[in-house]
């Protein structure tokens, strides 16, 4: 069974699960949830469309070699800082982000720098923030979440430096 199919089964299974709970509370609860969810979907589709259909162009004009170059070989805290900026600036989805990390690791990038890159990508990748997080969440929350997350790629790199790679 492919991972994507498993994720879809878990996802729709959860929807049916919470849907049954709503239905037990009465038909009105079920109907109002369905209406609210559908309205949200209709409201969000144009934003997702712009992001998904447009993101290929953004990814195509930012050459991946530039980002891999930033990660460079073992370079201490300056390397960690560039890794964090590179992580936030990486366009495209998980394949791009993780592949760049894998290339940097193979090219001799230090493990703490690659950790910082992957964690920064997970926290700040601009495309995910703009395409997914801002459309769904209050903008105030998103900026606040990003701001308080800033120390954590550095902390992850520091932990990696202390415990070392197994």
């Amino acid at each position, binding site marked *: 069974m492919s*991972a*994507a199919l498993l*994720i*879809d089964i878990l*996802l729709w299974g*959860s*929807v049916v699960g*919470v849907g049954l709970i*709503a239905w037990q*509370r009465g038909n009105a*609860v079920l109907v109002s*949830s*369905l209406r*609210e*969810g*559908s309205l*949200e979907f209709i*409201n*969000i*589709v144009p*934003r997702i469309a*712009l*992001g*998904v*259909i*447009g*993101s*290929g*162009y953004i990814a*195509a*004009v930012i050459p991946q070699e530039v980002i891999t170059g930033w990660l460079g070989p073992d370079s201490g805290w300056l390397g960690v800082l560039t890794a964090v900026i590179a992580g936030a600036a990486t366009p495209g989805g*998980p*394949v791009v982000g*993780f*592949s760049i*990390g*894998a290339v940097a690791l193979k090219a001799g990038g230090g493990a703490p720098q690659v*950790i910082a890159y*992957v964690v920064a990508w*997970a*926290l700040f990748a601009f495309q*995910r923030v*703009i*395409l*997914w*997080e*801002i*459309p*769904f*969440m209050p*903008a105030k*929350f998103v900026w*606040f*979440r990003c701001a*308080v*997350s800033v120390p*954590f790629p550095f902390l*992850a790199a520091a932990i990696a430096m202390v*415990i070392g790679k*197994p």
Partner: protein
Amino acid sequence: MKEPPADDAAEAEPRPGRVRKPIGWSMIFILVLVVVSAVLVWRRDGIDGVLEILTHDVSLFGGIMPRVLAGCLLGAFITEILPHEKVSRSLGPKSGLKGLLIGTAFGAILPGGPFTAYPVAAALLTVGADFGATIAMVVSWTLIGYGRAVAWELPILGTDFTLWRIVISLPLPVLAGALGRFVYARVYPRSTDE
């Protein structure tokens, strides 16, 4: 500091609907970025390059749509069925370390991708979770959630690196949530009772 209103008073009020956002600056920014990038691709690769990316992304979009719908429905059901006063007790500003741990656990086990994580996180905010617990949930989903790790990180970066990265990341959601709560109470001192 004022206690939140009594439960019956909270229930008597209409539930806060989720705010529908108008097309804002972030969308205009993205639109400009997309148009400029598309023009650059057109100048470099011609119309074929533009159409190739368009075809690929439209099919990607078609594949994602059902999951976005599932995420929206999940968010709506959660908003409707979770009791507000219980959520604000277990995930609100005064929920302490336990609230951050619940948020972290929730983010780690949540199935799906960004199409579920953000609608569900928005639903939690609506029903009374504070910024701290919601930050713990979002950061936990992105750093220690299994969905992306299993589907993408393991095959590309290998088991050793992925597990090592996840172990290092384990404390981060709680720390991010705690920092968020600490900063929030100082930046918005009046709204912590909400």
